[in-house]
């Protein structure tokens, strides 16, 4: 609130006359000598409709009280309770005369002011001496608290606001690409799926599910992969001696299994020549027809 400007006009205001409330602080009536004027001069004629607007500008009884106090350049702590109560009641009366919708809170405040005033008429001894017991203390606390947030609201309103004070800077990006992320799967999810499907299979089809040595299965895939790019691979090259005896056995078992399933052929150009391995799936020649029989027989 621009107290300076307000003081210039409001100081010395005689009680009894009804002063007009300020319009919202951020909307001064005029700028005089660089100072915004937020209070109408008292001698200016105000049509009743405009009066209504001013009265409606109050955000409740605390706002009205605060206005009455500030208009006289008084500290919130220095409330002349009788004077303020009288002025407050005049506003209430005016609001009622203008048929403004008067919230119950205004009347509640009127009652509170009247109570404070009456308590202050009593001799001190009757309301127990002590500073906290001043009947105005609670009102002062509430006024101060309200005023803090009234100010805070004004501060927030002054912050740079997007699309009012500042603008998000944007520039078009043509040929925008969207990356589609792939779902995540955990090993556990897959295992649970496997367990379920195996369980179902056993339940409904009495399919005998036996555990197979994974290492042999793995090696079977490995061998097929090795055969993928070359027509013939030397039999001994499929073995990795550094894997030791177990590794060699696994590879051999994998080769036998692949042979049994008809996935590979083992060929030999002549007796005692090196053995070669090839994929069996490409050309259907006579030897492969034999394999088919073997597979179906097993």
């Amino acid at each position, binding site marked *: 609130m621009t107290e300076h400007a307000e003081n210039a006009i409001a100081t010395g205001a005689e009680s009894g006359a009804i002063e007009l409330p300020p319009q919202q602080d951020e909307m001064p009536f005029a700028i005089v000598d660089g100072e915004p004027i937020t209070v109408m001069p008292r001698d200016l004629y105000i049509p009743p409709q405009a009066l209504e607007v001013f009265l409606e500008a109050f955000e409740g009884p605390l706002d009205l009280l605060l206005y009455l106090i500030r208009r006289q350049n008084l500290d919130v702590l220095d409330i002349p309770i009788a004077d303020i109560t009288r002025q407050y009641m005049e506003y209430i009366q005016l609001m009622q005369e203008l048929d403004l919708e008067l919230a119950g*809170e205004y009347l509640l405040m009127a009652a509170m002011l009247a109570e404070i005033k009456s308590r202050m008429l009593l001799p001190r001894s009757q309301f127990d001496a002590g500073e906290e017991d001043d009947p105005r203390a609670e009102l002062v606390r509430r006024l101060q608290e309200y005023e803090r947030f009234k100010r805070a609201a004004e*501060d927030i309103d002054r912050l740079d606001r997007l699309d009012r004070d500042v603008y998000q*800077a944007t520039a078009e990006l043509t040929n925008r690409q969207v990356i589609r992320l792939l779902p995540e799967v955990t090993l556990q999810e897959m295992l649970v799926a496997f367990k379920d499907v195996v369980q179902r299979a056993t339940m409904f089809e009495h399919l005998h599910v036996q555990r197979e040595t994974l290492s042999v299965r793995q090696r079977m895939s490995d061998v097929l992969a090795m055969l993928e790019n070359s027509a013939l691979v030397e039999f001994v090259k499929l073995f990795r001696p550094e894997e030791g005896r177990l590794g060699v056995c696994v590879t051999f078992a994998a080769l036998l299994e692949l042979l049994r399933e008809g996935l590979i052929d083992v060929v030999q150009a002549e007796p005692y020549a090196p053995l070669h391995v090839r994929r069996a799936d490409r050309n259907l020649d006579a030897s492969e027809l034999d394999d088919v029989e073997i597979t179906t027989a097993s």
Partner: protein
Amino acid sequence: MNVNQLKNLIEAALLAYGQPLNMDQLRGLFDEVDRPETATVLEALEALARECADRPIELIEVASGWRLQVRGEYAAPLSRLWQERPGRYSRALLETLALIAYRQPITRGEIENVRGVQVNPNIVRTMTERGWIRVVGHREVPGHPELLGTTREFLDYFGLKSLDELPSLAALKDMDDVGIRLEFADTAQAAVADLPAANDAEATV
């Protein structure tokens, strides 16, 4: 990628995205192997901020990350680009917002206690729709009233990095000397007070 290239990429990202980007998002522009260190990204951001000094845009950090924005001094001429004027918010809305921002989490009842008037449901709805406030829980008292708090969008909208950056709240005056000052005030006032009630009060207090 050197700092200059990184600076350009960040500018491109901020302008193309049109919303604030945080450190994770900026570093996330890169494969893990190429991902720059946080310190490097900060260095590039600083370089970008410096470069903007000669330009009509500025780099600021808000709650959701960094944002390139057109400086406030251009707001007046640029307002002609839009037919609609930006909305004004009522004092009631701003006061309610201030209470939620400074006192969160807070119930409607607590807001009413301070403002002395009922909370207008439309105000709460407007702010919720704008994404500025949300229900953050319920107070464990009869009726389990909703506790309201502000959102990251609220901070972004007002260009704040965190609630700490809100303008500081005026200090309450010390209540201890309220009583004394009240007495002084009334004594001083007695001369001008024209109502018998006030004088009576003076005489007896």
